[in-house]
């Protein structure tokens, strides 16, 4: 760990480097949402932007993963995602089933092709 930064006080660093730079967006959202009603047309757009960003997070995690997931081939990552979605559709639209089967597919694929 970087002693220069962390020696000041790890908890001050947590507040000023980790907590506040993240929390500022939530507080800004709180201010911007004050005048909006649930039926406001602009919220359809805001929700679309939020959903697209969420999808972007997923896309980046699949195509540019971090840590141990980098050693699993891209084809296995995409395949496991597809298998999980298929399981979700087939098994009574259960999210639990989709996640469990998708994870099993990833582990099987990883063991076959990379580990």
């Amino acid at each position: 760990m970087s002693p220069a930064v962390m020696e000041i006080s790890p908890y001050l660093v947590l507040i000023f480097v980790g907590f506040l730079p993240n929390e500022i967006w939530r507080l800004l959202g709180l201010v911007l949402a004050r005048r909006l009603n649930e039926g406001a047309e602009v919220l359809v757009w805001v929700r679309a932007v939020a959903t697209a960003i969420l999808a972007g997070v997923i896309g980046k995690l699949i195509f540019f993963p971090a840590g141990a997931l980098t050693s699993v081939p891209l084809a296995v990552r995409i395949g496991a995602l597809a298998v999980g979605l298929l399981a979700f559709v087939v098994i009574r639209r259960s999210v639990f089933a989709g996640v469990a089967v998708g994870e099993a597919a990833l582990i099987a694929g990883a063991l076959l092709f990379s580990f």
Partner: protein
Amino acid sequence: MPPESDSASTAPAFARGFAFAWRSVFAYVLFGTFVGIGALGHDFGFSLPWMLLSTALIWAAPAQVILISALGTGAGAIEAAIAVALSGVRLLPMVVALLPMLRAEGTRTRDLVLPAHFTAISMWVESLRLLPSIPREHRIAFCNGLSVGLVLSAVVATAAGFYLAGTLPRVYAAALLFLTPLSFTVSVVRNSHVLVDRLAFAFGLVLAPILATLNVDLDLLWSGVVGGTLAYLIYRWRRAVR
């Protein structure tokens, strides 16, 4: 409304939200994800109390991973703070979309501070799905209960991961990292009943990796604004044609 009747009506709603957390796939997905984050923090030499506090305060896995790895690899405070702030932009539209669903007659802005803090992808996805079936005056308490359940799962998992660090086989470490994209995808597919949400999801999924490959700055922000706006315009056009 007098405080007595207020607390009498909010306690069951809070408890209901808390109970719902354990029926959500995210209680378990977060557990797995934060086992990974706890192990990461241990490997970079952070203390357990610091890790637990950072899970509860930051309450956004990407920001926390960025903070831990930036500080752990010796990045400067300013540099780390900017990276954390960039990762947090997604929270703004989520809070703006969520809070109007929580507001009832007589709701004060300060009542919404806690739900705003608790806003994260997991809580947002579940709130948008569950809130329409909750009476409006109970929504804030329900949301807080749901969030406390999810945060609790993440905090306990952070501790578990801290102690498990180094013992986890690499294939399971990979599987833990796969939990987030997999569970988000399945949940969003379940929750997207309207065209605009489905389009926004598809556009974002395609745009972000393309922009990242092209090394565009703020790739996530752009894929959100461009993908979301495109989805919204198509929705407007379809509505006008009908």
